[in-house]
């Protein structure tokens, strides 16, 4: 169902819950994987996703249809995930160690050693490069769509992705 149709239903008296349920069903999977690649652990991703949708619910009455619904939700999810990470990093003395421990404790991670190393490399990237890398590498989004989600120009995003790839490769080669 298209954004416009979802919003039309939402603004019909008495259909808010139904429309919101449709939104959750339409976008939760995409948002979950975006969040999971930032926070890595299922339990954290679940919390962040829930907080994201609570914010979406609270913000929907003010949402203007000029913006794309998914782009708006994606921005909320990104902010929530990054804030969650910041909080975690603040309370952790050795973040790399904590991250590895969290991955090992996560029952929804298969324990692949090479992937653990890869996640560490991605996690060490600066915020913007990490976001661009995830969207391009995992979601295989075209640059035009990433511009829609995070702004900037295609040129700057290409540069970010290139730098991110180089840093990850260097990180993986160091050990």
């Amino acid at each position: 169902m298209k954004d416009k149709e979802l919003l039309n239903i939402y603004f019909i008296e008495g259909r808010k819950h139904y429309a919101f349920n449709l939104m959750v069903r339409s976008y939760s999977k995409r948002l979950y994987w975006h969040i999971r690649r930032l926070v890595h652990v299922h339990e954290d991703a679940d919390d962040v996703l829930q907080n994201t949708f609570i914010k979406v619910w609270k913000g929907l009455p003010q949402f203007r249809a000029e913006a794309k619904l998914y782009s708006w939700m994606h921005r909320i999810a990104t902010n929530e995930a990054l804030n969650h990470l910041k909080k975690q990093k603040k309370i952790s003395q050795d973040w790399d160690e904590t991250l590895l421990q969290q991955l090992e404790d996560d029952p929804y991670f298969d324990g692949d050693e090479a992937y653990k190393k890869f996640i560490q490399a991605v996690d060490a990237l600066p915020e913007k490069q990490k976001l661009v890398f995830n969207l391009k590498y995992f979601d295989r989004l075209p640059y035009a769509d990433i511009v829609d989600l995070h702004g900037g120009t295609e040129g700057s995003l290409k540069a970010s992705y290139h730098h991110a790839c180089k840093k990850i490769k260097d990180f993986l080669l160091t050990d």
Partner: protein
Amino acid sequence: MKDELKKYRKEEVLKTPEDYFDKFAYRMQMTIGEEEKKTSWLTKIAYTLKLRWSVPLMTVVMLSFFGIWYEQNDTVQLNDQDLMLFLAEENTDWSSTDELMDLTYEAKSPSYISDQELLMYLKEENIEHELIQSF
């Protein structure tokens, strides 16, 4: 270089619990219901607090406003001594009684200068005034 990284794109490494997304949608409906209850409860409290505090607050504001207004508009009761003090402070050279009279009227103060004293003053100052002619 990017091809070297392709091998890490393993979809199966990260998993979710079974039927996670269906269950999540249901859980979200429940959470939103609770959020709404919480919000309506908070709204009720806010409304009650608004009523409870707005009436006394408005009373205090109005009393303060009228208190200040009354203080500013209160008539000043000057006696001769105050007037003399004022004249001394201002170091005013009174060239005519008109100014003194104006000042007296402006201050809305009852003057305790007797007509006799006023006549004497006028005569001393050699001021022609209708008050002299009336006597």
